[in-house]
């Protein structure tokens, strides 16, 4: 078992590194490999090539990697916390919360006549998405305290998503073309809209989010047996929920804020990790989900560059078959 796990981690590392390099190589401008290596070693000084390789491709590959890690980990935490295989940042409405925040910011503000937000607008989009995501998660957590049946929580999450979606549509209806277009483009998801100046900000949020996720490994393992057993094993559930809440807001909230809602990664990747590693232990699942998530989004980004499609559609088409396969294969998941 231990050998199998080690081999799988090695293979995954190789896959992530390979996909990362491929992601830098593939792009709309055809650059020979030698020139790219030249940029990395400093031999190529052509500013155009340098800019393509470092400012555009390398940055985008890093964002894809971070997004894959972040979305997968938040999905894993949510699935364990809600003891529900269909939980994830997307299904429970965190992404729609973020969309709602961004819609209020991009669409609502112009309607109210607040147009001159200037420099604040980039941080503002992220901030708005964060607040939206946090508000939805907070609501879900409060509801899950009062309602014992986890399926009810899931349905409420979906209803909340739809309700927020409806309000967003109302905002869209009253918006001008410019604001509307920037919002619609945001909803399609893009890994390429992040500037180098924003990267440190994202990096810090993801590192903190991942650290918190790692801290929750032991409680998450205990939560597999349900809340009662977790409590009787000495776990402070309120504290754990707060930590998972913080981690998911930082991870899914940040990525959604800067890249738009990227669906099905958080839902499908933890299942892939469980299936590949044949484990339920979060000490294995956290690094496994992070690696698989990174590989999936890097692959998604490559496909999106080759086929010129938005990343959101590709992750959906990659993730949905996984979920369908796992749910139909393993009926125990739904009992």
């Amino acid at each position: 078992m231990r050998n199998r796990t080690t081999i799988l981690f090695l293979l995954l590392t190789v896959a992530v590194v390979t996909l990362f390099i491929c992601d830098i190589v593939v792009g709309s401008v055809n650059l020979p490999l030698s020139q790219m290596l030249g940029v990395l070693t400093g031999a190529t000084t052509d500013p155009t090539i340098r800019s393509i390789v470092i400012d555009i491709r390398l940055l985008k590959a890093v964002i894809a990697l971070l997004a894959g890690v972040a979305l997968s980990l938040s999905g894993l935490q949510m699935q364990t916390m809600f003891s529900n295989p269909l939980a994830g940042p997307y299904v429970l409405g965190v992404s729609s919360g973020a969309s709602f925040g961004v819609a209020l910011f991009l669409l609502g503000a112009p309607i109210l006549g607040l147009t001159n937000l200037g420099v604040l607008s980039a941080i503002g989009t992220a901030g708005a998405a964060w607040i939206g995501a946090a508000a939805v998660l907070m609501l879900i957590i409060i509801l899950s305290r009062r309602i014992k049946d986890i399926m009810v929580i899931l349905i409420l999450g979906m209803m909340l998503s739809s309700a927020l979606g409806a309000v967003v549509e109302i905002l869209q209806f009253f918006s001008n073309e410019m604001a509307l277009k920037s919002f619609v483009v945001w909803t399609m998801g893009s890994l390429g809209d992040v500037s180098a100046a924003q990267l440190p900000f994202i990096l810090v949020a993801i590192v903190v989010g991942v650290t918190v996720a790692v801290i929750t490994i032991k409680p998450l393992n205990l939560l597999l047996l349900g809340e009662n057993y977790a409590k009787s094993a000495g776990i402070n559930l309120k504290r754990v929920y707060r930590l998972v809440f913080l981690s998911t807001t930082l991870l899914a909230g940040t990525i959604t804020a800067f890249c738009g809602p990227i669906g099905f990664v958080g839902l499908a990747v933890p299942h892939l990790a469980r299936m590949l590693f044949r484990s339920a232990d979060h000490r294995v699942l956290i690094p496994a989900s992070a690696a698989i998530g990174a590989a999936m989004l890097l692959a998604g980004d490559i496909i999106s560059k080759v086929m010129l499609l938005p990343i959101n559609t590709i992750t959906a088409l990659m993730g949905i078959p996984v979920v369908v396969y796992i749910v139909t294969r393993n009926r125990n998941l739904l009992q």
Partner: protein
Amino acid sequence: MIKLEKITVAFGSRTLLDSAECTFTRGTLNALVGRNGAGKSSLLRILAAIDSPNSGEVVVGGKQLHTIAAEERAKIISFVSTQRVRVANLRCCDVVATGRAPYTNWIGSISKEDTEIINQSLAAVGMESFADRAIDTLSDGEFQRVMIARALAQQTPVILLDEPTAFLDIPTRFEICRLLADLAHNQGKTIIFSTHDIDAALAVCDAVAIMEKCSISVHPTAEAAEILKVLFSL
């Protein structure tokens, strides 16, 4: 060892316990009996500090239960519920290993000593050959035993079990009851389990706690047999 002081438990207009008082002695095996809906499970959940009573105090080893920190409490009280867990890829030994949680580090590393305790606990319930089996492939009775092993691995002076014999066949029932009696008598543990299996309870227990009419009374087994005869018209 465990003392109930004026415990009141109510759900809406339904009162389960009204200023109930009783004492469970250290080193005894106690059966908790009562009709359906008398509040056996609710009481066990309160004793395990999973739920809180509406009013009153539970005193464990001289300390008020709600004042004991969660991690400390997990070293004093273990709990076995009736809840069935179905998680794919989770082995029996992993489940029993969660009983070691109060003693492991922040990430839950299992030491050699822990592994030994886990194996001993599985062996105590006759499940050592199931250590590597997935938990979702077990029968209800097998699962029950694994969860008892988990409580044993937690090495607590108090063990609470909610209907631990419910899914077990008759030989296993007596086996588990005898195991619990051994633990109480040889290791000085205080064990309380709810059950509808009066025969098994009277055969092995030191005392029987009867829940009836919003109160609870603990009787030595012989005395309890007489009361139960009237109560259940045996």
